[in-house]
């Protein structure tokens, strides 16, 4: 019994720790930290690729049009080492992305967090390391 409690305590402390983030390059060359964006939309495409995994989401504009945003995540190997697989999200999922906007102003963002409607944060590890 004592062993199980110890195990669970360890599990809680280990799993609850912060997750380091990894990127192959400096984020700020491409993305402007002074331009944060919050985007809510439906996932239309998932690219489980290197040097970055990407998701594409349809975001409705106030005027009713839809803009497809390209969301840069961490490298696949970094996400995998953080415990994520490509099935963490699926096409059609609604997500809220907090990120920073591309310097060009194009609908591209580097994700700081990707959150599902139930509040679960997925695919963490996207910020500059």
């Amino acid at each position: 019994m004592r062993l199980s409690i110890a195990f669970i305590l360890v599990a809680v402390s280990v799993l609850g720790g912060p997750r380091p983030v990894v990127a192959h390059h400096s984020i700020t060359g491409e993305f402007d930290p002074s331009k944060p964006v919050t985007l809510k939309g439906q996932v239309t495409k998932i690219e489980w690729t290197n040097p970055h995994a990407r998701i594409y989401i349809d975001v409705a504009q106030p005027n009713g049009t839809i803009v497809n945003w390209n969301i840069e995540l961490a490298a696949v190997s970094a996400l995998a080492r953080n415990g994520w697989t490509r099935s963490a999200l699926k096409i059609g999922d609604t997500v809220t992305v907090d990120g920073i906007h591309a310097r060009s102003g194009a609908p591209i963002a580097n994700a700081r967090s990707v959150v599902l409607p139930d509040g679960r944060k997925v695919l963490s590890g996207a910020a500059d390391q």
Partner: protein
Amino acid sequence: MKAHLVILVLVGATLPLLAQQPGQGQPSISTQRLKGPPTGPVPRLPDGTVDLSGVWVGGGPINDIEREGGLKPGELDALMRPSAKALMATRDVTMEPHNRCLPMGVPRTTPFPFRMVQTPTHKAATHIFMLQEGNIHSYRQVFMDGRKHPPDPDPTWYGHSIGWWEKDTLVIDTVGYNDKFWFDRRGTPHTEQLHTIERWTRLDLGRMENKVTIDDPGAFTKPFTVTFMATLSPQGDELMEYICQENNQYGVHTIPGFDPLTGETKK
């Protein structure tokens, strides 16, 4: 009864965290890394040679070779020739070669691991390979068979490396570098005259020190030495595929005027 209650509460608290680790019942590699490198004695091969094999992280500069290498602020700047300073002043982080999936060179490292491989293992190694996962999938080849450097090697990203043991330290002597890679994200430069002497010492099971002397009379007025620490990745971690060219969108649509072929931006 009380114990059961405690477990229930703890399990309840754990479940959402477990849910963040899809498909796995154990902590992720990066979470295990937070505990620090494993401890224990230095492993050895049957002939007594230090065994450096394993999956390692770090051991070189990433952001700032001066600070991360243990030098005082301004120390490197004071050694830099005017030509090197002028070159560095033209660089910004968007021009980094590895943004275009080019290698990191030496002694720079990446956030991704590398595997040290000594071969053969049943007698003195003739070759040591450092297999790099990231950026980019590539390898360093160190000749341990006593050969010398060629007289006029073609300049390359990893140069021509010969190695030998000094007690338990692996010494890697490298010449024949190109001048294309950066020592760090600040753009600290070097020339083709670069000569590095790395001293890799496995301090214990989980830590390997890399003390590097950088001698480049083309860029610095005298040699300097910087020190880094590599740590052993948790058991179970392996090199993973990392094909940087697969979907590299660096700068293409994010930086106005960026040319992905040259890495330069038209102002």
